[in-house]
């Protein structure tokens, strides 16, 4: 018995098992990689090799002609990625501080506004950078910000973002207290109306690129932005994620969300 060799074509177990498994692989592959893709009504498959590549999941060439062109143009030219912002160095922050001299009138000496314009201290750098670019390109409309941003170069905007992200903003609300105070719209959203929880993007548990931190922002500013989104007078949310939410919110919910976020971080 011990003289019997397993890995030998004379061994029935070897030939049957390897042959059987190979047969299954070959038949399944022929069906999955050739027959099924070729028999699809999809006209983009042009031949045998193309069918195999499609079934194997080889990415097909990008076809810009298939992209729909929106009559209103793109909502934003900024492609947000996690690596969009470079790590800030002290030089960048310093340059940003100098550039920020022209912002102090509205956004405060250290990024904390006293004029109900947004507090920028401690804001996510990606959020500031994206909004500046949208102001410059006109994707976000503002008679005040557009002329100011149009003078800024791309490195200028990055420096400003780095500077304001670097400034401290107080967060002194205890976590347990937040849960009690948060209105339902922030905590749960309203599933029946397709409104996700505000907190799923703007909150402790979320950390998404270019999503602004709303804690301690002026109540009137948050309310105004939600109203702009609802009325589509602000359109620089690239997937309409904010417009879709805001359109469904009642005025009371807008007030509640604005009041809640404004009350955090005071």
């Amino acid at each position, binding site marked *: *018995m011990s003289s019997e060799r397993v890995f030998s074509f004379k061994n029935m177990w070897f030939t049957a098992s390897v042959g059987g498994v190979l047969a299954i692989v070959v038949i399944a592959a022929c069906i999955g990689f050739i027959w*099924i*893709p070729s028999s699809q009504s999809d006209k983009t498959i042009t031949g045998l090799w193309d069918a195999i590549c499609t079934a194997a*999941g080889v990415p097909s060439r990008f076809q810009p002609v298939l992209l729909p062109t929106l009559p209103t143009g793109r909502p934003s030219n900024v492609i947000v990625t996690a690596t969009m912002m470079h790590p800030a160095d002290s030089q960048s922050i310093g340059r940003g501080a100098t550039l920020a001299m022209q912002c102090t009138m509205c956004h405060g000496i250290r990024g904390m506004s006293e004029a109900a314009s947004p507090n920028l201290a401690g804001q996510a750098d990606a959020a500031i950078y994206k909004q500046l670019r949208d102001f410059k390109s006109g994707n976000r409309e503002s008679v005040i910000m557009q002329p100011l941003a149009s003078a800024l170069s791309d490195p200028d905007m990055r420096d400003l973002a780095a500077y304001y992200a670097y400034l401290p903003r107080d967060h002194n609300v205890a976590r347990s207290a937040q849960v009690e105070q948060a209105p339902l719209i922030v905590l749960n959203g309203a599933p029946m109306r397709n409104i996700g929880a505000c907190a799923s993007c703007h909150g402790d548990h979320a950390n998404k690129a270019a999503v602004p931190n709303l804690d301690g922002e002026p109540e009137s500013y948050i309310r105004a932005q939600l109203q702009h989104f609802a009325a589509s007078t602000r359109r620089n949310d690239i997937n309409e994620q904010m417009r879709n939410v805001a359109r469904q919110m009642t005025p009371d919910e807008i007030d509640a969300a604005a009041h809640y976020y404004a009350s955090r971080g005071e």
Partner: protein
Amino acid sequence: MLNKNSKYLVLAHFWVAFAGFFVALLLGEWQMVMRSPLVHWIGDPELYYRSVTAHGSAMAYVLPTLVAMGFGYAISEFSLKQALIGRRWAWLGFALVVLGTVTAMIPVSMGLASVLYTFYPPMIGNPFYYLGVVLVVVGSWIWVALMAINLHAWKKTHRGEPIPLPMFANVAAAYLWAWTSIGAAIEILFLILPAAFGWKTTIDAGLARVFFSWTLHAIVYFWLMPAYIAFYTLVPRAIGGRLYSDTMARISFVLFLVFSMPIGIHHLFQDPQVGSGVKFLHAVFTGMVSIPTFLTVFTICASVEIAGRLRGGKGLLGWVAALPWKNPMMLAVAFSFVMLGFGGAGGLINMSYQLDFAVHNTQWITGHFHLIFGGAIVIMYFAIAYDLWPHLTGKALANVRLMRTQLWLWFIGMIVLTFPWHFVGILGMPRRMAYYDYANPAIAPQAFSVIISVIGGLLLVISGVLFITILVKGHLANRIEPEEFRFSMAVHAPTRLPVALNSFGLWLALMIGLTITNYGFPIAQLMSLEQTSVPAIPVGVRK
């Protein structure tokens, strides 16, 4: 007869496994209650996912790994009739599993790693959670090595003799686990941990999911192995019958070795990063797994029929009535087969590339794996514990009535828990939800199903309490001198086996070969493509 130290070794594995199981069982029921319309919602989804992560990690990693390891050590001594070689290493492996469990559970309970036990990148939790899981796996690799070493030593002194079936199956399980755990290990070490430590801000979530699928399906067969070993080597003996075919058993185990690996992508049918042809290939091989399953069902039913006829059962179905229904092992195997039947039928839906669209990510899936693993497999873990306990403690496990009650409750509880899940899954109720808005008129009619599942879960908790009670009572009972532990005898005991069925080389080669044909291209392609990474999303309490 087990050496005294080996008894402690096996007991230690079983007790930690069952302690983890019990805590996870309570968490599972808490989740059901919190999600039901019976109580006011907790208000914080993070708490829910924290619990789900602990429940899944304990049930999927800690319980089956420790049961397989402990049972494996017992099988090695009982069936080879030689003292366990490397017992100190076995204790080290056990210590690593325990250490890993504690390491993983601390961040989970602090809410720093609520990523669920399947990790779900690009979600990223605290690195210690993943390190803990790695420690559990490394501890189990020691077991794999020890099983191979013990078998090798036995073979040296028993040249040409057939390997005892329990050890053959046990080592097949060990090799299966060694190969399948590599996928998750690669995922954690090379993709998740760099992001968890903050060295990288992006992760190739698609590739990570492919690597996890490498582990995700064969791990189910690793969970299943102790149950199958019990089917073949404990059940016929316990109910007074004979194993119908020793060869059939060996063929089933080697087929599991070959076919349970190259099928994991059926978990990724809805994932965009894998081509449809690859998915079809995996669907075909998933279908092949039904062969060893059907072989097992046939062989065990035939073995049970032998017992029924030996006990005087006559006619086409008369042998069923003649079976020893008061024997817990008989009940367990019957319940296990019923649940395996329903769960397996549901599994055929899941593995069908097209039908899967209807049930993907619904409660159907949760129902399926609870029925198969929590039902068919775990009920056999109970039976294994009952069977081994007197031999481990040297004390009688006398209260057979309580055991029957426990098994009945587990069976009924699991059916009551999972059947509503299957039903509402078809209606489209999503899984992994912390919260259902019962005010929604579309969801409101499904509220009753969640309440029924809460009741099913409650029965399971009662059964779990009984199980622990029975085992504890076993320690406090009167000392006895248990007979020598025996495994089932086959109708025709193997005296000569083809080398292919008495060694693993051929089957391991096929397992690895099929892994390469079925996983090689998707992995190579995803690794070579650029710009496939997405931002890692830290999960848990920030600041």
